[in-house]
């Protein structure tokens, strides 16, 4: 269910979003103003290595979890 024209649909942290196609993980994080060094990406239930952020592309239908450390006990 990729978006028409240059757009695709992905699920990010539980919500479906329509984004431009062609994003790498890094460029996608930056588009969200997120610091790649502080965010861990789980793509379709698989955790990505940071150094793969440039290579891996965000595909239509991807289920992405973007997590980081927060205060906890």
């Amino acid at each position, binding site marked *: 269910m990729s978006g028409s024209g240059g757009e695709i649909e992905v699920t*990010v*942290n539980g919500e479906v979003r329509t984004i431009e196609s062609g994003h790498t993980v890094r460029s996608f994080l930056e588009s969200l*103003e*997120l610091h790649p060094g502080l965010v861990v990406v789980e793509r379709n239930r698989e955790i990505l290595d940071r150094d793969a952020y440039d290579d891996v592309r965000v595909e239509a239908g991807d289920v992405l979890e973007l997590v*980081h450390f*927060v205060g906890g006990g």
Partner: protein
Amino acid sequence: MTEMAVQEPVVRDEPLVVGGKEFRSRLIVGTGKYETNQEMVDAIAASGAEMVTVAVRRVDLDRTKEEGILYHLDPDRIFLLPNTAGCYTAEDAIRYARLGRKAGMSEFVKLEVIGDERTLLPDVQATLEAAKTLVDEGFTVMAYTNEDVVTALRLQDIGVAAVMPLASPIGSGLGLVNPYYIREIKSRLEVPVIVDAGVGTASDACVTMEQGVDGVLMNTALAAAEKPAVMARAMKLAVEAGRLAYLAGRMPKREWAVPSSPTEGMLE
């Protein structure tokens, strides 16, 4: 009669060693529930803790200028211990542990698998199951558990780096309800025993360390105190006091009195 003369015997204590890593402080603190980040930073500094726990959660996409914990803590000075708080199954806990490892800089994880929402007591079966998998995957597992020595011994057999029995339920502040069980666990295990959860005030931390355990972990006692940084310093001192008292060997208790001044040499 100089302070020097006595420094030596007084300060001699081994460091806390978990998974081969040395810590001078036996106090571990959480980073949750502070009203402000400044309050958290001040409390951590005042506590003297070298290891703090952090949780793994989704980035909040709606907030611009997102502030994760790493904006406030310097991993070069404070060792971050990712936890699996909020997980109710072994599978979830394993997933969070893996994410935490990727986000952090170490194999350490504080394993928590909750079995009951009201008491937040652990699901010991799921904890054992998750611990096994994580140890096999090379994690340094610090396992939150209840006061049951049978479970504690199994966690050690599985190969966890530290066993973390609770003093009383998370966030309750009821203190060390069952010193007997905690002493028993400590006397039976070889891996470090770090009491996790339930400490409410300084004397709770002090009496817990007096049982001979290797460390104490707390969060709410600091974050929910009227003055977190002041309580944090109190806890630093209390943990050291309890540890030293344990090493010093306390006087015996008696149900009768014994004078402190000589009974001889009285006047007539």
